[in-house]
């Protein structure tokens, strides 16, 4: 729970978190090393100095630490933990659903565990979706279109095999499709993080919500254009939000564009933990005000109501979380923990 300077309670769902193992012991090859190194560079270049972690802690952290960073020291009420396999880079995967679910088990009512699939697996991808639904009751998945697999350097949401997966997701009620469309970490010539495939998939699967993580940056204009056309396309703020610290004017420009094109009902907060921890992000976001010139130029404002939606209410709607009931449950849990 985030308490504002005026004492108001704000319900926070962290829409984008990870419980990864990028440690040298789990690295399969140089790509695995370079991948976590690149994440660490994001962490060090955009975090406030007093929030920096040592490298070995960043490579692998405990479930207890994650819980503390998000919910005890941090303001999150709930967190969506995403699964990213990267089995070509890591022996046991980077953060598989099994690892995430195991971690989440110990902290009742705190985590929403999302799955992942790779349509290039064909039939096996469909079987895996069934397995995740039956075993973990998932409501969402995280897709990583630039993941390497054998000779392939990525895939598109519009691939026929991807469509078969979406049909199944729609049927099983796995309605929230988070797609990494952001900075090019693993590049392709044609750029596997290009956002245009979202347009077609969102049109063809009206029963699904497409949450575009990192808002398509650095292709913000393309993303905004698509989000305007498609009612079921949302933007996740992970990676865009940390600019609020080092480059507030830049963040103001990005959020103004998003508010104008996408709207306050379709933007989701995400810390991208453990790249960044949520406390400083939420505090800075709550205290942030749009500069007057941008307010006037775009005709938008980042009001307290808009901030509440972005910080939790929008994600609650997508995941069917009854905020009042959830607050009561968490309060009871905290009481039980304190009493125990």
């Amino acid at each position, binding site marked *: 729970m985030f308490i504002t300077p005026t004492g108001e309670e704000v319900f926070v769902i962290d829409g984008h978190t990870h419980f990864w193992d990028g440690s040298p012991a789990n690295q399969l090859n140089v*790509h695995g090393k*370079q*991948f976590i*190194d*690149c994440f*660490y*560079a*994001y962490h*060090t*270049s*955009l975090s406030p100095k007093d929030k920096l972690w040592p490298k070995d802690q960043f490579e692998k952290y405990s479930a207890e630490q994650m819980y503390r960073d998000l919910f005890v020291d941090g303001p999150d009420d709930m967190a969506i933990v995403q699964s990213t396999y990267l089995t070509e880079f890591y022996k046991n995967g980077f953060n598989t659903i099994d690892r995430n679910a195991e971690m989440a088990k110990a902290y009742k009512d705190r985590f929403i565990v999302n799955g992942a699939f790779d349509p290039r697996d064909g039939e096996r991808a469909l079987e895996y979706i069934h397995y995740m639904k039956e075993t973990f009751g998932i409501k969402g998945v995280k897709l990583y279109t630039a993941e390497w697999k054998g*000779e392939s*350097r990525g895939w598109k949401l519009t691939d026929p095999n991807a469509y078969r997966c979406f049909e199944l997701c729609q049927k099983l009620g796995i309605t929230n499709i988070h797609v990494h469309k952001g*900075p*090019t*970490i*693993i*590049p*392709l*010539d*044609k*750029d596997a993080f290009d956002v245009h495939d979202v347009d077609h998939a969102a049109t063809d699967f009206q029963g699904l919500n497409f949450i575009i993580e990192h808002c398509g*940056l*650095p*292709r*913000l*204009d393309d993303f905004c254009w698509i989000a305007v056309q498609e009612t079921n396309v949302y933007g996740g703020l992970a990676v865009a939000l940390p*600019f609020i610290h*080092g*480059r*507030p*004017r*830049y963040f*103001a*420009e*990005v959020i103004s*564009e998003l508010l104008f094109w996408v709207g306050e009902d379709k933007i989701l907060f995400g810390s991208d933990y453990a790249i960044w921890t949520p406390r400083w992000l939420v505090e800075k976001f709550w205290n942030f005000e749009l*500069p*007057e*010139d*941008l307010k006037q130029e775009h005709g938008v404002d980042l009001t307290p109501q808009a901030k509440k939606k972005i910080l939790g209410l929008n994600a609650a709607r997508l995941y069917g979380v009854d905020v009042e009931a959830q607050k009561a449950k968490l309060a009871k849990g905290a009481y039980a923990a304190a009493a125990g």
Partner: protein
Amino acid sequence: MWQRLASVTDPELDESVTDLGFVEHVTVDDDGDVDIVFRLPTYWCSANFAFLMADDMRRAVSSLPWVRKARPQLRDHMVAEQINLGVREGRSFADSLKEFAPGGSLDELRDKFRRKAFERRQEVMILALRGLGYEDPAICRMNLGSFDEVEFTSAEVARQKPRYRDLLIETGLACLPEDRAFVAYEGGPIKRHELVSYLQRLRGVRINMEFNSSLCRGLLAVRNREPVDGKAEPTRSPCGGCGSCAVPSGGQ
């Protein structure tokens, strides 16, 4: 040598590879062979951009009369070997990196980035002129001769002015003093009632480029194990950020 290298830009950031600190060192042997060792912000930086920069370095340095061979050597990159070999042997990007299934030619990519550079520099100039009190119609009909006479006090705007002018000449969009100084990249004037929406689009171009630029500089600084300290860097932007965004004016 360094002047020639400085003319090579990172296509995505529109900044010189030497200013960005990509070039680590250059060695010249007695036969006039030149080795240019360079690193990019991450191991994952886009293969085609890396190839483009290596090829541009080779071209720039080879144009010196005493140079026999110019050999760019990219280090610590996922496809460094293929790029170094391809550029050294004068192969195309498509031949050098088959697994990346390149769609377009490198020249198409060059043009795409020249357009972005043009639009980004142009936005700087238009906003600066507005800042000096020029009305939109006056900006739209300003010719190259009048543009040349405008003096800008901001160091960043003054730096961008000749860079914008260079691209006008290079693209043939304006050459003579009576030619319009502000035209669309496809050619043709910008109509005064369209300037507001035109600038909105240019802002979109800048927001995307700044995102990359800001991340790249941060990542490069980390990679080079330099302290990332905003205060230690020259601040050219109003936000006090990374100094790369080239915005002449703004609210905050």
